[in-house]
């Protein structure tokens, strides 16, 4: 009995921490959507790109860990700026599906590039934080996951303060709400779009470094992008808090499903159990738990 409780606790801790790692990626998605209404289907590929940059830079002998992280940050920010200018500006007024398809196309390009340019084999990304797990009672977390949790929570704090209290954050919310009025009020909409993408790039960079360290860097790293969707849908497409809470719930449900449902049904439930929870939540709150309710006018 006590063993069962211990197991359940360990399962829960593992699920929650992985959930926060999902949130890290989801944050990038939410930032872009919140500020520019664009849905980024290539979020996983962004993380992969950051991972590649970090892995390649760290492969140089004697490079300190911070060097790799900084390189990833710089590349991702520049990349996001460039992306916003070159691809998304022309698509500004188009229907939502066009932007989705553009990001899918972009994702295909990013996935095709590594094999031609640097070779598709898997690279390890070591951050030098060691392997000995932290133990909390019966549960244990590898240090990389603890780092991920810390970074995600830090971002949560920073972005919440940013959007609520800082001048730039409020301006960004205004832009997201109604572009025309924001422009009339003298806010440089284009600059804030670029800023939003740059922030998303930052989050992707750190996500890439952490996930790359966990999984190893190769084209498959982009697959983590699929996990973003249940998280942001559950939490609300434009809510930073939603990304974190959504991640926690999804991670927890996945873990518990794998631990408790799988033995009865032969496995594999962790794949769709979070989606079932998501649909049930959506029936009650169609815009996600913390998403803004879109008021439609006829």
């Amino acid at each position: 009995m006590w063993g069962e409780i211990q197991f359940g606790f360990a399962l829960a801790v593992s699920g929650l921490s992985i959930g926060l790692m999902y949130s890290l990626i989801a944050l990038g998605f939410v930032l872009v959507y919140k500020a520019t209404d664009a849905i980024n289907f290539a979020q996983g590929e962004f993380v992969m790109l950051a991972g590649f940059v970090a892995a390649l830079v760290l492969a140089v002998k004697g490079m300190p860990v911070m060097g790799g992280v900084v390189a990833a940050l710089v590349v991702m920010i520049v990349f996001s700026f460039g992306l916003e200018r070159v691809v998304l500006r022309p698509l500004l007024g188009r229907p939502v599906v066009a932007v989705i398809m553009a990001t899918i196309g972009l994702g295909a390009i990013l996935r095709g590039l590594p094999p031609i340019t640097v070779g598709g084999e898997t690279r390890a990304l070591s951050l030098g934080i060691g392997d000995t797990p932290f133990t909390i009672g019966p549960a244990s977390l590898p240090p990389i996951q603890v780092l991920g949790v810390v970074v995600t929570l830090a971002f949560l704090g920073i972005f919440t303060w940013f959007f609520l209290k800082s001048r730039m954050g409020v301006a960004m919310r205004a832009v997201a709400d109604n572009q025309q009025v924001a422009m009339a009020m003298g806010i440089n909409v284009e600059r804030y779009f670029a800023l939003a993408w740059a922030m998303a790039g930052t989050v992707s960079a750190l996500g890439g470094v952490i996930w790359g360290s966990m999984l190893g860097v190769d084209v498959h790293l982009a697959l983590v992008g699929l996990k973003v969707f249940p998280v942001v849908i559950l939490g609300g497409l434009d809510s930073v808090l939603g990304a974190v809470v959504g991640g926690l719930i999804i991670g927890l449900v996945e873990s518990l499903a794998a631990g408790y449902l799988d033995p009865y049904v032969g496995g594999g439930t962790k794949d769709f159990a979070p989606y079932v929870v998501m649909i049930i939540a959506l029936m009650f709150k169609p815009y996600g738990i913390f998403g803004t309710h879109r008021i439609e006018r006829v």
Partner: protein
Amino acid sequence: MLHRESGVFKTSYAADMALYPLPIARWAVAAVILLFAVVLPLSLHEYYLSIINLSLIAVVGALGLNILVGYTGQISVGHAAFMSVGAYTAANLAVHLHLPFWVTLPAGGLMAAFIGAIVGIPSLRIKGLYLAIATLAGQLIIEWVINHTPAISGGAQASIEVPRPTFMGYEMKTQGQLYFFLLFFAALATLATLNLVRSRIGRAFVAIRDQDIAAEIIGINIFRYKLLSFAISSFYAGVCGVLYTYYFGIANYEAFQIGVSIDYLAMIIIGGLGSVLGSILGAIFVTMLPIAIRLVMEPLGGLFFNAGELSSIIASTRLVLFGCLIIFFLVVEPEGLNRLWRNIRNYFRVWPFSY
């Protein structure tokens, strides 16, 4: 000049409602039918027919998805799952009950339609990307159910071998014979879609896409029509899955995973949302593009690289090229190939007097 609309009189309701009222349009359609039914199968090598066969199957699936996404405005990412529902239904009926293909095909479609309607239930409350991800949930759940129910999947391998379709005692095995088999169903699907979108149901779909609250106000039962749209679209998907099954001779859910759903979305977006011709063009384009890229790159690349390096380069370049083309299309012509074709046709409508 060629596309004369003046001087055409209609003297009955039937003539007015005809699908192709203009004589030039009827000639054009007749020529296309002649081309596909007679010229191509006699003149092309089996390999090229096999590529066309794959495109024909894709056309059926793309048409179905366009009904849901293009005409009714409900984004769905679960299309491939309905294909596997259709595929396994038909496979099980063919293998266990020895039913011929003209029974298993509609049966597969109907089963897929039923499941599709269930997956479409959230569409009443949920919209946009939220609905898209809910349909993704449907895709994953259906995959899991098939994978874990040996009664449906036929065992751990989840593959059911089906016999080749037989028509009047004549078994269809070669690419040429399968070509006619698939052409028939692709043509049927196209005709059905053309008529569907002109009908009352089609107009209701478009109304829901444009402004579903307004549609409800003027008396369209949006719940019923949304479910109907999911059901019809899934029927097409189920038929598409059955066609794949008969073409490969085996039903296997691994051929119908999320990547395939995204491929079909790409087809209708590139082809043009909300148009039949767009679905067809998009399906052909997306199916043939990787092959075309390879056919062009092979002789060119063979001049520079040896076989081993070449395959690696072609493979990655193809992916990059695919993404670039998608983005290029979206920036240049976001309404797809259909709009491109309409532009060309409109140019010739008044040519040479284009002012």
